[in-house]
């Protein structure tokens, strides 16, 4: 079974692993949908501060959102590189994507500590509860993504990611773009649109 090119024989024409990834991401939509729903439901319901308007630093978060957005670009470049057999390009762009992801995560860590200093915590009020759980889940997804990218980078370095295995990069890319899009939604709904 192993050495047959699966994509050619499947019922949908999609490779099994790719279909799996699409289904997984569809299911993730409900996970984030529920988390975002809980945030929106409780928006403005906190009985004590601190409130979002006291804490949000829109310029700062815009920069980190931009960083994450750029990482999607480098991810696309990594895929393009492996597809044309450019190993050096693959390594460069994988590394850049991982680094941008890490940069985003440090931004989030910084933001969390800042908010914490100003008195926001998981238990301080509803805003703290819903904010940390939502963005925390997203951050955990980015962390997993960075780990995947770094693992792929190591494989690429050892020459274990050849042109014919570009599907691995494609799958990591799908996940990465998804996590990115989720951040755009969170950023818009939670940071930008303030009632």
């Amino acid at each position, binding site marked *: *079974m*192993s*050495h047959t090119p*699966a994509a050619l024989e*499947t*019922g*949908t024409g*999609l490779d*099994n692993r790719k*279909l*799996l990834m699409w*289904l*997984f991401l*569809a*299911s*993730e939509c*409900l*996970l984030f*949908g*529920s*988390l975002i729903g*809980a945030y929106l*439901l*409780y928006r403005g*319901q*906190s*009985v*004590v501060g601190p409130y979002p308007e006291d804490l949000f630093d829109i310029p700062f978060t815009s920069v980190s959102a931009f960083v994450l957005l750029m990482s999607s670009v480098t991810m696309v470049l990594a895929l393009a590189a492996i597809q044309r057999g450019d190993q050096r390009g693959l390594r460069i762009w994988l590394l850049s994507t991982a680094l941008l992801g890490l940069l985003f995560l440090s931004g989030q860590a910084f933001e969390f500590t800042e908010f914490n200093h100003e008195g926001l915590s*998981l*238990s301080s*009020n*509803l805003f*703290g*509860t*819903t904010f*940390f*759980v939502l963005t925390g889940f997203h951050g955990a997804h980015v962390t997993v993504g960075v780990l995947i990218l770094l*693992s792929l980078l190591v494989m690429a370095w050892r020459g274990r990611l050849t042109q014919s295995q570009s599907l691995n990069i494609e799958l990591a890319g799908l996940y990465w773009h998804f996590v990115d899009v989720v951040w755009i939604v969170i950023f818009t709904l939670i940071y930008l649109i303030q009632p």
Partner: protein
Amino acid sequence: MVGALRRLRQEGESYQGVWSWLTTVDHKRIGIMYGVTAFLFFLMGGIEALLLRIQLSSPNNAVLDPDQYNRIFTMHGTTMIFLVVMPLSAAFFNLLIPLMIGARDVAFPRLNAFSFWVFLGGGLFMNASFFTGGNILKGELGAPDAGWFGYAPLSLQSAGTGIDFWAFGLLILGVASMASGFNFIVTIFNMRAPGMTLLRMPLFVWMTLVTSFLIIFAMPIITVALFQLLFDRLYGANFFNFEAGGQPLLWQHMFWLFGHPEVYILILPAMGIVSEVLPTFSRKPLFGYPFVVISGLAIAFMSWGVWAHHMYTTGLGPIANSAFGVSTILIAVPTGIKIFNWLATLWGGAISLKTPLFFAVGFISMFVIGGLTGVIHSIVPSDYQQQDTYFVVAHLHQVLLGGAMFGLFAGIYYWFPKFTGRLLHEGWGQLHFWLMFIGFNITFQPMMILGLLGMPRRIYSYPEGAGWEWWNAVATVGALLIGVSILVFMFNVVLSLRRNDQAGPDPWDGRTLEWAIPSPPPAYNFREIPTVRARDDFWHQKYEEDETGRPVPIVGGGAQEPEEEEHAEGEGHGIHMPSPSFFPLIAAIGLPIIATGLIYDAAIVAVGVAVLVVGIYGWALEPASE
């Protein structure tokens, strides 16, 4: 570490005996493990049920104290739903889907093994909570005590670690269900034999597909709800904390938004099984196949829009209540369509009255009563009277035990010969059926009356003189009878395995592809991947119709894979099957360890994460055979 991983892998390929089961990625073996494990949990949940019934058999009884009662009734419901009906259905997905669509295995055999081990770990983890309450021999039970629905704020106020075990346990089980949901969707979409178009798929395959979609969309919702509960309990978050402005009712919305699709996750596989059993034993194709498929899809879609019928009395207001009442009544329409199609399948058929058919007809009759009581619930003013009474208990057992479990037993009797090569004994099988059917009705019809007499559910005892004594005593007798019927079933299995009544490849004159291959099937299932030309393809290889539409056997038809040849030396060696792997098991072990650590001690979390990481990396670096 890489070296150690590699060694583990090489050993894996030569394992035999127990080790070959621990490393297996064969869908049939995984299916058998799912089935056996779920059955053991069924015994566990059954003993819990009997304890509850004995406690309730007479007023002011003191077999269980209130605390024990709450824990046992919580574990009973949780076990029966998540550790019995769902995994028994998963057992059938595993055993049958590749065979029915003409494939050699599922799309991701190792992911499949992972699902099973995660399920087993989650089930054991959940039940381990019994030991956390002190000395279990003195009756000091741990275990969750807020019901299978875990309503906040009750589930927040519950002391001890029972609810934490419950929530983490359900999260772990959710991983198992979702992994198998993804796997079976990909398998059904991508791995069908040539000619097996969607509308030629056996109905069981359709219902598996629909159920899998429900699983991957419903599970994330309960996942979030459980995390919210755990954050509130363990880290002082405020999701359900009324003082901080949180709304405990949010839990009910999330739980039932998951919960109603969940009830169809429980029933659709059984409906699929019944839709296979009825045609075989009436020797007629399923009546109105496309309608049955479409009703299944309609049920799945509509199941997302009815959740608040569990919440009529929470004060949502008349408009919301009416809207949900209407949507709930509407969902009974596709359900009814299925029932009429099943009846029409039996109508005028050449009925062969065997045990699987008994259970299938038992399913239809009990499920009809269950569905009708559901419709009674859906009418808001009527439900105001029934909510939280034994009438609801009667309804849910009518659909779950009378429905899902009867359907699953029909499947066990029907496919047992396929996977063991032995027929189950007919006489004992029918005795099992009648005892269970009569016991079931003696247990649960009285609960309808009790509910209408106003007996509330979720109580550990009741006073004398409320007029509930007689029917409670009757219900307990019925429950004991069901217990006896299960003993008869177990006896039958042992007896039949000993008796060696060889089934042969096609004991029931079946219609679908699994009957075309030997029993038990070889590891690679099909020596040659079949080409499918019709719905019920195997039947059409065996029979053609005369002018009056009656089936006439084709001479030599349907014999393309005779059993004898399979035993020939060296047969099937040219077929490359996925190699066994240890890593799904290792990765799966990581999850309960992490959960234990999150309840007790962060250091244990690190161990769990390490185990998980070893499992995942070993898995990913293994030369892929899938």
